[in-house]
C-alpha cells in the first residue's frame, strides 16, 4: 500500500512530518556527512538574532536522568552571516528550511524576520518566544499572551512567510498564549520549548551550570510535552501543532500524532544518535503500512 507522508501546516507544505528541532541541528550543514539531509521533513535552524551572540560562559550543559539541561544562551553567528554564508549551501540539499528567529526586543524579532523573508529558499519562520536562557526577551514574551500576540502580529506584518510560534511550557496553562499567537496570525504552533530546571553537583557544592538555571530537554520531558500538546489540541482543534519534547523513537513520534500533532521535531536525540530523525521517518512509514493507514490524517487525534 502506498503511504503518503506529506503534511500541510496551514500554507507550509512539508514532504514528511519529521523535522530537526531548533538548536539541536546547528545550521543544518554540520550533520551533512552523517545524515541524509534531503530526506528530512524540515530543518529548523539554530535561533538567529540580529547581531552575533556570544552565549553564556561554560559550563553550559549538564546531563540529568534521561535528559539534559542547557543554558547555551543563544550563541549564534547572527542572521546576516547565516543568510550570506550558510543558507545558499543548505538550500542545495532541498529539505525545507525553517529559520528560528530570536530577539531581546520586539523590534529585533521583526528585523531578523524581515531579513530572512527577503532571502530565497526559506520555507517558514519559527518564532522562539520561549528561550529560557536569555536575560531579556525570549521567554518574557512567551509567558505573556499579550506580548506573544504583539510579536506574532508585528512579524506577520514584516514577513510574508508561514509563521510558527514556539511555546514555552513554563506557565501553567498554555492555551491562552496559544490562542493569542493564532489570533495574531501564527500559522502553526510548536510545543514545547525546554522546561526550567537546575542541577547541583554535590561534590563541588555548586550549580552545574554557570547560569544556574537551564532548560530541560530529552526523554524525561515527553509526558509533559504530550500533556501540553493534547490540551492545546483540545482548545484549538483547527490549528496545526508540531510536537517537540523527548522524541527518540518512532513510537514517541506516533504518540504525538495520535494526540493531535501534524508534525514532530527531534531535538536532544540528535546528539545521542544523529540519524534519529531518519529512523523515525522510516518507522512512521512502516507503521502506517503495517496498520493500513494511507496517511497521517487517518491517525491524527485518534487518542483524544
Amino acid at each position: 500500500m502506498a503511504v503518503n507522508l506529506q503534511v500541510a501546516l496551514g500554507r507550509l507544505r512539508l514532504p514528511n512530518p519529521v523535522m530537526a528541532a531548533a538548536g539541536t541541528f546547528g545550521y543544518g550543514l554540520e550533520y551533512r556527512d552523517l545524515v541524509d539531509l534531503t530526506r528530512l521533513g524540515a530543518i529548523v535552524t539554530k535561533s538567529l538574532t540580529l547581531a552575533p551572540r556570544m552565549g553564556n560562559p561554560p559550563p553550559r550543559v549538564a546531563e540529568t536522568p534521561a535528559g539534559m539541561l542547557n543554558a547555551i544562551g543563544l550563541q549564534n553567528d547572527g542572521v546576516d552571516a547565516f543568510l550570506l554564508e550558510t543558507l545558499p549551501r543548505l538550500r542545495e540539499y532541498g529539505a525545507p528550511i525553517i529559520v528560528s528567529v530570536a530577539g531581546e526586543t520586539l523590534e529585533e524579532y521583526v528585523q531578523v524576520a524581515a531579513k530572512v523573508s527577503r532571502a530565497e529558499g526559506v520555507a517558514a519562520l519559527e518564532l522562539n518566544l520561549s528561550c529560557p536562557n536569555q536575560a531579556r526577551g525570549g521567554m518574557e514574551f512567551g509567558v505573556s499572551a499579550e506580548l506573544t500576540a504583539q510579536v506574532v502580529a508585528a512579524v506577520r506584518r514584516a514577513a510574508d512567510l508561514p509563521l510558527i510560534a514556539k511555546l514555552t511550557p513554563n506557565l501553567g496553562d498554555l492555551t491562552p498564549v496559544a490562542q493569542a499567537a493564532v489570533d495574531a496570525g501564527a500559522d502553526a504552533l510548536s510545543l514545547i520549548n525546554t522546561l526550567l530546571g537546575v542541577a547541583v553537583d554535590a561534590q563541588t557544592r555548586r550549580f552545574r551550570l554557570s547560569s544556574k538555571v537551564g532548560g530541560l530537554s530529552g526523554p524525561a520531558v515527553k509526558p509533559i510535552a504530550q500533556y501540553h500538546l493534547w490540551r492545546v489540541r483540545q482548545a484549538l482543534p483547527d490549528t496545526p501543532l508540531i510536537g517537540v519534547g523527548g522524541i527518540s523513537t518512532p513510537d514517541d513520534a506516533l504518540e504525538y500524532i495520535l494526540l493531535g500533532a501534524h508534525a514532530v521535531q527531534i531535538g536532544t536525540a540528535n546528539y545521542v544518535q544523529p540519524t534519529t530523525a531518519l529512523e523515525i521517518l522510516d518507522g512512521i512509514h512502516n507503521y502506517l503500512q503495517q496498520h493500513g493507514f494511507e496517511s497521517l490524517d487517518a491517525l491524527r487525534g485518534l487518542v483524544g
Partner: protein
Amino acid sequence: MSRYELPAVVVEHQRRGANLYELILHAPPIAERATPGQFVMVRAVRTHAPLWRRPYSILRANPDKGVFSILYSVQSAFTELLAMKRIGSTVQTLGPLGSYFQPVRAARRHILVAGGVGAPPLCFFAARLAPTLTPDEQLLILAGARRSEMLVGLDEFRALGAEVRIATDDGSQGYQGYVTDLLAQALDDALETAVYACGPNRMLRVAADICLSRGVPCQISLDAPMPCGVGVCLGCAIPVRTPDGGVWYKRACAEGPVFWAEEVVWQ
C-alpha cells in the same frame, strides 16, 4: 573531515591497571583516519540513562588491522555499561572527531605532559611521533597522577625509547608533587622545546602558563561536557582570544580538543 558513525565490534577487552580497561574496537574507517589527539563519541546502550554519548580519546590505532582502542576506568553508570561489553558485541561509535596534536618540527625536544587519565592521546601521539624523530631529537614524557597506581601508559612510553619522569601527589612513585613542577624544571635548559599536554584542566592551565612565560610552543587537549561531539550543540564552549583582542567561544569538540595554549582564556 571524514568521520563515521558505525557499530564497532569489540575484539579485545583488557584490564590494564587497578581500575583501568582497554576496549579494542574493530572499525576500519575510524582506525584508518584517526590522528593522535582525536576522539570518538561512544554510545554504550540504546536506553536513555545515561543519555549522552561519552568522548574518549583514541589510545592507539592500527590501520592495517582496522582496530583502535580507548581506555576507561569504571566510575559511573556509563563506564559500568562499557565494562559489560563482551568480545564480539558492538559499541556504537562516532569518529574520528576534533583537532589533533601537531608535531612542532623546529623543536629538538618534545615534552609530553600526561596527567592521570589524560595520557591516552599522548600515548597515541608518542607512538606516531617517535619513529619520525631524528637522532638529535628527544622525546621526554612527564607523567603525573595522584597515586602510583593511577599512572597510565608508562610501559608504552618506555617501549618507544622515551625518557619518562614521574610525579605523584603522594610520592608513591617518582617526585612527590605536581607534574607541572617537573615541566618547569625541564624547561630550565636552553633546548628548543615543544610541549604537548593532556590532563585535568587545572593542570593544563599551569602547564600553559609555564610554557607561555618562557615562549615555549604548547598544545593542550581540553575537556568539557560534550553532548553531541560534532559541533552542533555548543555545549562544550572554550573561551578563546579573538584577533581583535576580544573573547569568543570555540567548541572543544570541533575546533578542539587540542588548542594552542596562547589561544585559551582561563576563567
